[in-house]
């Protein structure tokens, strides 16, 4: 009887320890995972090396249209991708449908054009590398020497 009770207690203890380890691992891994979900890239002519989240958000909402040196900002989006979704959620604080409607409102009141959008990473990267002032995002971990990486603080 005592032996059985001991085994149950020991089993529960092991389960608790395993759960605690899993939670610790998840939380320690989370910032890395989130940080790795997207990378902000820009044309090499862009003098800025880092942007605040707030400035990045303003760029993708059309409120910030000029870099510090006066170059016009052209932002592009990687549509219909998990990267698009996580970037919007983390930086722009909108869901894809809210973002879509925001720009449709701008378009149909004459305030802006629709953002340039790409379905694949290569076309997006090529566009950014060929256009002064262009900025966009790609999945985290992807590097391309034709563009520069901008840190989002």
């Amino acid at each position: 009887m005592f032996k059985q009770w001991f085994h149950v207690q020991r089993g529960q203890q092991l389960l608790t320890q395993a759960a605690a380890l899993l939670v610790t691992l998840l939380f320690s891994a989370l910032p890395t995972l989130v940080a790795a979900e997207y990378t902000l890239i820009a044309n090499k002519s862009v003098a800025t090396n880092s942007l605040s989240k707030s400035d990045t958000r303003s760029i993708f909402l059309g409120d910030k249209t000029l870099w510090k040196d006066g170059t016009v900002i052209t932002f592009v989006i990687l549509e219909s991708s998990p990267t698009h979704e996580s970037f919007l959620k983390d930086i722009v604080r909108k869901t894809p449908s809210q973002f879509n409607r925001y720009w449709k409102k701008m378009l149909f009141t004459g305030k802006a054009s629709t953002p340039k959008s790409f379905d694949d990473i290569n076309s997006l990267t090529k566009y950014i590398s060929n256009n002064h002032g262009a900025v966009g995002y790609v999945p985290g971990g992807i590097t391309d020497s034709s563009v520069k990486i901008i840190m989002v603080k």
Partner: protein
Amino acid sequence: MKKHLARFLGTLVSLTPLLMVGPAAGSDVEVHGFVSQGYAKSEDKNQYPIGDSGGYGSLNFNDYAINVSKQITPKLRAGMQIVALDRGTYGKNSLQVDWAYGDYRYQDWLGVRVGKIKIPLGLYNASRDNDYVRNSILLPQGLYTEYYRDLTNSIKGAGVYGNTPVGSLGKISYELNIGSIPINEDSALGKAMGATAMGSTNFSTNYKLDWETPISGLKVAVSGLHSTWTGTSSWVPILPATNWEMDPWNRKVYSLEYTLDDLIVTFEYGQEDFDVDYGDGSPIQKWRSDSWYLSGVYRVNNWFEVGSYYNQYYVDRNHRDGKNFADYFYYNTSNMKQHDFALTLRFDPMEDLSVKLEGHMIEGNGLNWLVDLAGQNENWHLFLAKATYIF
């Protein structure tokens, strides 16, 4: 009506080659538009917002638009939009220039627009014609009255706009427009006034100030429209026409919007003040109405969204019981208010197509002034359906 519609569809067809060139493909000229067809079923005595929506309901409930724009230089753009809408007794698909302006953005904090500019008033007025960009079919009527559309749509003149971060306090955006607002006797307002001539408003000012607060997802705004205008009406056809004057005519709206992931909660409160001189020696009539609403919209998944609002409107905010209805030449207290509970189901079967179903339970008829107020029911219902394709 058919002639106007045929012309509009002809324009759409002739622009089809341009539509094939998407903006991402490097085209300088962008062409976009929407086609929206609705159905409205109200009650025989309370037909709203379509004049023939009693009985089996009405299909005279559509909006079409097409716009062309071009980024001329990195800081200068120009464009225009033509719309045609039908609401049964008014609209009738006649073509009108919705907006047409040049826009020079000197810096983020200062841009200049010249032409016919959409009026920002509350969170939704500027985009009110485009059903696709919101949840509900009918916006809360106390603040976005269908019959006022022409009077609050766009202003001919000039404006400045811009935005600036304010450190840890968030971001401020502003818009200020001046000019005159074109309205005509064929509008819903003109018909309600029995107008034979209306023209444009006199010098008008319009402003909107948005504050994106440091609280994530919380936006606060204040906006206003101030004007005066005149018209000529034949109240009784056999009598000579009289000239009347609205001086002043002021609207103010306070807005609050909170977004938490897929949930958007909105609260707005607005006031409308105007004095009417009927020009027949009768005392100047002072109108002091107000309205508020609370709405919630939740995006359930990629193709389904549900939304609801409750809206109250009072003709006289100083006498909410409406017992002074006779001062307004009304018939009873139900003419002095309108309370509306609405529920909307929105389906997005494709990215550019929305289909909506909407029900309203309404108490009072203070905003239903295109139908004789004397015979209207105090409690009534309205069902709407609408499909919109956007390109």
